[in-house]
């Protein structure tokens, strides 16, 4: 088949040159500095606001401690950090973190399953949409801790109780992300997909899913926050013997009025929450950048 510029006449050759010239004018200058230095620059830009935030928090904390407020029981930053360091050397804290993360992952995975199935159905099936759409949003206003009496009566003081509430708290954000994402898909993309002969499963996998990915990941990020909140509530309310978890450690500290250790555990909880949130944030920004949205 006679294709490619070589087969064209002189007039078209000028066309090609003109286009190449216009293309160069059209494109933004590639503002990409050389590799390694750029990575360092990006790393620095990401790290310094967080480092600054930590320093400000530590300074404020130190200030309160120095001011002498509740002098006898208020934990000083130095004591707390060395307590944390000490606990990190013991197996107990790591065992507890392991149990808690296992529950978080399991609960989140179950919520993902439930959220994706319900979200996909509700976003694709019109009558379901009318019936359940607003119900899902309504569910998100429900404080997850209020589910615990229900869960404990159903499952007793067990891991199932905790997971049950985690799933209840998180699935609706995932479903919502999916629904909101498919609402935002441009009709133009769908028309193009139709013209390209994409139907059914291949339409869903090749167009609809990738198109709603940014909203879906935003939903995951929110679901993680809800899951983490309710997991902590659950671990404080549902204490299971012989199963040290982050919640159990915190509860023990409360019983022993050990504010220094309690604060160390709080730092652990905060750190896990923030790290996972950052992972979702990085994924979300990566997706958006690849599409020119950020």
């Amino acid at each position, binding site marked *: 088949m006679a294709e490619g510029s070589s087969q*064209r006449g002189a007039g078209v050759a000028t*066309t090609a040159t003109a*286009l190449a010239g*216009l293309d160069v004018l059209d494109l933004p200058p590639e503002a990409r500095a050389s590799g390694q230095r750029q990575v360092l620059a990006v790393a620095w830009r990401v790290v310094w606001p967080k480092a600054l935030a930590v320093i400000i928090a530590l300074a404020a904390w130190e200030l309160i401690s120095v001011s002498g407020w509740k002098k006898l029981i208020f934990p000083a930053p130095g004591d707390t950090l060395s307590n944390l360091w000490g606990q990190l050397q013991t197996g107990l804290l790591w065992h507890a973190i392991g149990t808690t993360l296992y529950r978080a992952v399991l609960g989140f995975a179950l919520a993902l399953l439930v959220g994706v199935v319900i979200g996909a159905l509700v976003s694709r099936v019109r009558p379901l949409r009318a019936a359940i759409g607003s119900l899902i949003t309504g569910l998100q206003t429900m404080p997850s801790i209020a589910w615990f009496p229900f869960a404990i009566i159903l499952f007793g003081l067990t891991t199932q109780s905790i997971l049950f509430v985690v799933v209840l708290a998180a699935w609706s954000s995932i479903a919502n992300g999916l629904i909101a994402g498919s609402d935002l898909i441009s009709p133009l993309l769908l028309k*193009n997909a139709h013209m390209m002969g994409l139907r059914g499963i291949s339409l869903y996998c090749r167009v609809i899913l990738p198109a709603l990915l940014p909203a879906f990941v935003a939903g995951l990020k929110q679901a993680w926050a809800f899951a983490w909140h309710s997991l902590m509530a659950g671990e404080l309310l549902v204490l299971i013997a012989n199963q040290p978890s982050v919640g159990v450690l915190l509860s023990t500290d409360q019983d022993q009025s050990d504010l220094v250790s309690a604060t160390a555990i709080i730092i652990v909880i905060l750190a896990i929450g923030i790290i996972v949130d950052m992972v979702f944030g990085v994924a979300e920004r990566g997706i958006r950048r690849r599409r*020119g*949205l950020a």
Partner: protein
Amino acid sequence: MSATTSVTEATAAVTLSGVSKVYGKGGAVVRALDELSLTVAPGEFTCLIGASGCGKSTLLSLVAGLERPTTGALQVGGRVALMFQEAGLFPWLTAAGNVELSLRRLSRAERGRRAAELLDVVQLGGFADKRPHELSGGMRQRVSLARALAQDADVLLMDEPFGALDAMTRDVMHDELDWIAAERGLTVLFVTHNVREAVRLGDRVVVLSSRPGRVLADIPVGVERPRRIDSAPVAQAAAEITDLLREEMRRHGGR
């Protein structure tokens, strides 16, 4: 009369007979097209012009099978591709990936080769792995053209495809399209509201009336090819058609 849509190997590439399209129901109906009849021969480049809202996009949607006519009969001979004013590329795919999605009938290796070929045709060989947001508007529109060509259609429908481009890029795109359409023997239905563009490209210019759209005039363009949009014969033919459009607007001005 009931609406029929059929795809046949007729002598004409596109035939619309007495096609009407009414949107909505109850109190809020819009009659977009009214008893419109139009025949396009295979290999013919037909430009459609008409006021905004007269049903040009609707007509293309009907031919493309995205909408069904309310009444009337529609026949399309062969495969149809449609290109919109905005490229509508999939932002998560590269330029090549966008084209390849239209080539699913081919094997993977064949797909890559063919996509590269098509990007060469629209002079974007060097941009295969760029994502849409890394390309300019004109380049995106060319990827969209390559994607439409990848569908291996016999009939190419274009809805104001170059409306958002600057004049220089548009001139170059006209040369490109001229060449591609002639080379492949494509039947083209090209919607524009730029009369000069219509005369520059069309074997024939069909003027639609204001809503509801029907054929007001069907004018063969005698200007010899290759044409230039700023040449005297193109300007002359465009002026005549513009007068006709003015006349039409005056007639509807008193409504």
